[in-house]
């Protein structure tokens, strides 16, 4: 069935269709409409699961991860400050292998205060051991939430589906919403370990020795590495069920390209338009969208970029003292390539400023014509 809904509403629809059993959440702009929509459905008896209205995001994640360890399907949503407050529990959820699913609506982190799209909040959680999927539009958000439960429960690691403030969270788009039975066929009822079994008591997350800690970390490392295959497999199967899929990364027009523009999330949609125009004008430029950030799809990125000499990374986030975070990650992924690449980072859209086709065109022209690559990112700032 087609529905004309916001990205936040799409998240809520997916959470309900996935027969989520526990939602624990706390309000924060711009995530709150997810929390409200699920509350409406709970009040109307249409949610299936239960809502826990915790007093903070930190407690929301505490409740989600412990419910997940008990063996039920758990979900939360947050943004920005809320995600930062959860930080301790994000490590905890991953460390005790709780397959919680979260929607993170990217929003600037204070200070200064603002409410617009900026990926630094979710990227700051890079090392917490969560799978991270960055989405381009409402349909992808909806589909990724459904995929996320199967991925997380398959590898026993938590999964974050990331959508941008306003550009996705509050924009309405027509999306395809499947029937319940169709979703059930793709995502069976939850079947994860029930760790608190009174007939077989065990101790979850006790104190361990140095050697044991290292061994547990290695197990998590293997699970996260294995997640790359699982994400691809789940995505392919999703395609078989619903006729749409996304891959770990997406490459457009890389054949014979002199430059690959690398983007994530909503900037990708604009780049599709801008690059089509540039190719018509004879510029040899292709597009690479990175969808899965953790685990990082190193091998596939190295393969598809192998024949492309120049790479420009355009992104809406910043690690102060370095550059855009996707740019650093991509450079690290390419460092062992047979042929060296010229990788130039560009920052745009910071704080939710608009990234229009003109800006993208300027980035491409700069990257194609530049004689020396700068180690510093190039700021494509709006002049205000």
């Amino acid at each position: 069935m087609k529905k004309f809904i916001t990205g936040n509403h799409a998240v809520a629809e997916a959470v309900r269709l996935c027969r989520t059993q526990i939602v624990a959440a706390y309000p924060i702009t711009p995530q709150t409409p997810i929390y409200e929509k699920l509350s409406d459905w709970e009040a109307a008896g249409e949610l299936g699961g239960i809502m826990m209205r915790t007093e903070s995001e930190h407690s929301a994640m505490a409740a989600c991860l412990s419910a997940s360890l008990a063996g039920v399907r758990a979900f939360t949503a947050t943004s920005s400050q809320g995600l930062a407050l959860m930080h301790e529990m994000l490590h905890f959820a991953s460390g005790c292998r709780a397959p919680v699913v979260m929607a993170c609506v990217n929003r600037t982190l204070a200070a200064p205060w603002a409410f617009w799209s900026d990926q630094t909040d979710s990227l700051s959680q890079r090392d917490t051991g969560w799978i991270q999927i960055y989405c381009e539009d409402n349909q992808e958000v909806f589909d990724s939430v459904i995929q996320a439960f199967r991925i997380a429960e398959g590898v026993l690691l938590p999964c974050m589906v990331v959508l941008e403030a306003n550009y996705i969270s509050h924009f309405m788009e027509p999306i395809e919403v499947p029937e319940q039975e169709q979703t059930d066929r793709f995502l069976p009822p939850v079947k994860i370990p029930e760790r608190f079994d009174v007939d077989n008591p065990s101790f979850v997350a006790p104190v361990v020795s140095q050697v044991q800690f290292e061994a547990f970390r290695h197990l998590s490392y293997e699970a996260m590495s294995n997640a790359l295959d699982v994400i691809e497999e789940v995505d392919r199967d999703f395609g078989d069920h619903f006729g749409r899929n996304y891959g770990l990364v997406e490459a457009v027009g890389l054949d014979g390209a002199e430059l690959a523009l690398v983007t994530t999330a909503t900037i990708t949609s604009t780049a599709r338009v801008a690059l089509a125009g540039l190719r018509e004008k004879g510029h040899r430029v292709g597009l690479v969208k990175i969808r899965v950030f953790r685990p990082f799809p190193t091998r596939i990125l190295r393969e598809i970029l192998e024949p492309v000499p120049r790479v420009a990374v355009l992104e809406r986030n910043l690690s102060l003292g370095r550059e855009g975070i996707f740019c650093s990650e991509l450079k690290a992924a390419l460092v062992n390539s047979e042929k060296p690449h010229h990788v130039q980072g560009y920052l745009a859209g910071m704080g939710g400023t608009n990234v229009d086709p003109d800006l993208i065109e300027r980035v491409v022209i700069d990257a194609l014509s530049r004689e020396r690559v700068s180690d510093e990112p190039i700021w494509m700032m709006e002049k205000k």
Partner: protein
Amino acid sequence: MVVKAQSRPAEVLRPGHAGCPGCGHAMGMRMVLRALGNRAVVVVVPSCVAVISGPYPYAALNVPMFHSAFEIAAPTAAGISQALKIQGKDDIPVLAFAGDGGTFDIGLQSLSGAADRNEDFIYVCMDNEAYMNTGIQVSSATPRYAWTGTSPMGNTRRKKHIMEIMAAHRIPYAATACIGFADDLTAKVKKAKEMRGTRFLHLLSPCPTGWKMEQHLSPKAAVAAVETNIFPLYEIFGGSEYVINYRSKGLPVETYLSLQGRYRHLRPEDVKSIQAETDRNWEELKRRV
């Protein structure tokens, strides 16, 4: 009285725990868990309770357990309790043990949130009146004048009144208990187990290491705390109905203070001031009954 072997309750805390000799927490946990039974899920958070529970791969408690993070005993227990209900296991009680730091200080917000929602679990605050697990630092449960590593001249603040805070949440049940009165403690755990919603036990458990006293004195100190009215035994139903469970002998506070090296530096006027405050608190409690 001879208890027949068949009717003797099974121990849930097994021998071989990792507490200090004479640890009041270990005694308290043993009593609480024996009353609770082993068909339950137990949450512990960083505190001596988590140490006592044993390092991997050992487990001193014969129940499914989760060692969660410091400040979230309550929402962790709530999450498990809600999940068990969804799975149809609503006859399995969930009990959380947290220390005084994890309850009075860093865990107070999340405990308040869970109590406000009247989440269904038993919360036991194991109060040894300081951060003992990190080596004796002052908490808001430390009494006035008590020595700790971060109150070397004696604590200048009064002990936070956690029972009043919990009562203000109008939870179904809140009670004080201590290891010196085992029958009272056992009865309270059993009573709490039969109820639903947020149930709170404030359990005073002396710490020979942190209180600077001999190892065998934990039960005696706990009895003295009650008999001097420093720690009265009472219950609060629904946040307003107070019941005093034990009429103490009203012994002078020195009986309690003199057992403990953490009060060694007290001047006579300090003792007087503690006596006066104890008397005020006792009168106030009696007025509420």
